[in-house]
């Protein structure tokens, strides 16, 4: 099955985060995704590797693109899909997460794709059930498939991440996307610069493999990639910046700022976009933007992840 690399064998039946992965493992997923990208270009957009398997989308938080992307990825791999959405994140009331998962498992699911507001929920689940667990975003811990698709997109255009300067701008403290990006990009040799107000930097940020700047105007000139994070109003505690207007003034990606960027800078955003807030529409829709390509690539990456964890689970049996 492993066409690309004879020596490397994927071993993980869960994808919980990118922090624990080696550069080799990350590259292996990306290479696998490249193969699956072709499936979506065929007239019959389907491949058989997950035929007879059941994938459960277990989403405790709102999501449109990630949930649908996983659903589509699973169906392109010929799996059956169960959609389970529960808005309430307060699972301490009513049925516990563990009971929910065990009940679903009793129906014979093979892969659980989980999104949850609590950091560590996927890891907790992976310890307690037999199915494969794929993290689709947990609290502000990790969002590994987003990190992978970001890197996939960069690699596809720039060839490599080695030596690239990448800025991640915005609410780093509450961003799982930032964390997955930081771990994976630094492992692949990129230089990551976090940009945002100090009130939105996580505790002891200096111990992460990054540099930190509070001045987007300085950073914009030297980076090859800029990843604009969404201001997540639902996660912001208190009042970390005085107003949206002042935030945009310092950290918004405006047409004006883009004039000082490298001409081939890649503009990324995990979506959904707050137009005119962290990014101006003209930039989001402009020639440097790869925001929609990210979404397209997400599908191939998620197919690769589902394929690989399923394969690893088969090995364990």
């Amino acid at each position, binding site marked *: 099955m492993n066409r690309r690399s004879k020596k490397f064998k994927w071993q993980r039946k869960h994808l919980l985060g990118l*922090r624990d992965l080696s550069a080799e493992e990350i590259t292996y997923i990306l290479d696998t995704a490249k193969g699956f990208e072709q499936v979506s270009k065929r007239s019959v957009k389907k491949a058989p590797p997950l035929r007879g398997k059941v994938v459960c989308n277990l989403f405790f938080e709102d999501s449109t693109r990630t949930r649908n992307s996983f659903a589509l990825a699973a169906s392109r791999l010929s799996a059956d899909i169960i959609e389970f959405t529960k808005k309430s994140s*307060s*699972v*301490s009331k009513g049925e*516990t*997460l*563990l009971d929910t998962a065990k009940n679903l498992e009793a129906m014979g699911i093979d892969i659980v794709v989980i999104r*949850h*507001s*609590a*950091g*560590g*929920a996927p*890891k*907790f689940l992976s310890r*307690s059930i037999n199915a494969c667990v794929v993290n689709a975003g*947990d*609290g*502000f*811990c*990790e969002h590994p498939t987003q990190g992978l698709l970001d890197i996939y997109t960069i690699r596809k255009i720039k060839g490599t991440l080695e030596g690239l300067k990448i800025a991640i701008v915005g609410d780093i403290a509450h961003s*799982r996307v930032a*964390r997955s990006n930081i771990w994976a990009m630094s492992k692949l040799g990129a230089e990551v610069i976090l940009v945002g107000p100090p009130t939105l930097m*996580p*505790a*002891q*940020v200096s*111990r*992460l493999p990054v540099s930190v700047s509070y001045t987007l105007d300085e950073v914009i000139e030297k980076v090859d990639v800029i990843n604009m994070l969404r201001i997540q109003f639902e996660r912001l*505690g208190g009042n970390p910046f005085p107003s949206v207007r002042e935030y945009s003034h310092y950290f918004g990606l405006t047409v004006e700022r883009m004039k000082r960027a490298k001409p081939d800078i890649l503009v990324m955003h995990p979506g959904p976009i707050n137009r005119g807030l962290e990014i101006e529409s003209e930039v989001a829709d402009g020639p440097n933007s790869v925001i929609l390509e990210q979404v397209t690539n997400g599908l191939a990456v998620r197919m690769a992840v589902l394929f690989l964890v399923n394969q690893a689970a088969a090995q364990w049996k």
Partner: protein
Amino acid sequence: MNSELLIKNGRVIDPANGVDKKCDVLIVDGNIAEVAEEIQNSKFKIQNCKTVIDAAGKLVVPGLIDIHVHFREPGDEEEETIASGSAAAVAGGFTSVVCMPNTNPPIENETDVEYIHRKGRQARKTHVYTMGAITKKREGVELAEMGLMAEAGAVGFTDDGNGVQDPAVMLRALKYATMFDVVIAQHCQDNGFAGDGVMNAGFHSTILGLPGIDALAEEAMLWRDIQLVKKTNIRYHAQHISTAGSVELIRAAKKNSLPITCEVTPHHLLLTEQRCAEYDTNYKVNPPLRTERDIEALKEAIAEGLVGALATDHAPHLQSEKELEFLAAPFGIASLECALGLYVKALLEPGVLDWPGLIRLMTEKPANIIGVDKGTLGKGKQADVTIIDPDAEYEIDVNKFRSKSRNCPYHGWTVKGKVEKTIVGGEIRFEA
């Protein structure tokens, strides 16, 4: 004479009386009759003595005292009851415990205090004391009936689980309490800083994506309270301090001769924030596990004599409550039954304390904090005695706990220092 009990040949450590030597302890009618070498049978007609315990090679110490436990009654009897907690206490060598008032409903009037005492007496294991709430419903707004609770036997006041947030309310509580000879204890946590945190704020909370509780949350309130104590000069006790900054504050307060004491838990001496890495909720506790640097500072504080008591903050929870996401699970570690071994590991083995020093922080000193006539083997005192095998090693097994709960991260640890017998009021209430 109705009952006599003679403990022979043990190493008797009674720090309150400066005793540390091999001798015998005679208990008559529930009280300490004599502590002396080779107690002669004839003097007390010990031919009638029903019970003689040979304690050769063992430590014979005043019954251990834990001034910070949660027995969950009334309200959460599925987690612990005063009966099950009391059984755990004597198995851990504790002859006196102080229940915290954050029950449901909280302990906030004399009837509540009497209820705890009655349940404690009925359990017939350990002496059960209680603190009362500082404010009604522990809401930090209106003062609870501290005077009447003190008359009913409450040994102090705290809103434990919450810190009293409003500085004016806290000042009022301290002022009001000067009428009575009581200690005001505080769970130092400024909620503004703590927010919805679930672990120490730092590198590990950052990589785990969990909201953190900054050390400042504890230190800010402790600093504030020290200013209030300067104004009122009432006895104040900082519960379960966990940070190097808190140690600094206590050190300065002691230098200024303020009537301030503090306690330290086993988990803040043995475990760091790093333990949360696998989202194991048995490590979710409040105040949260901190860093190596904080542990070192706490040990220095103990070595310097800044710490008035070792206290477990025994906080039982059901497995089903702990089998949740780290964010959703309740705070707390149950450690009453293995506490002695944990202190030995944390403090004796690295040479922070010797046996007399350790026993002092588990007997005489905590008794002084809550103002009870306990913690010594003085002649005529009620005979609360713990016999310890200092060399016996054992593996902590939560499945053998008398406590109803199993939320103990030390399961499988090997520790030294085993409780052999626990004697309360002259009666053997626990035998290993």
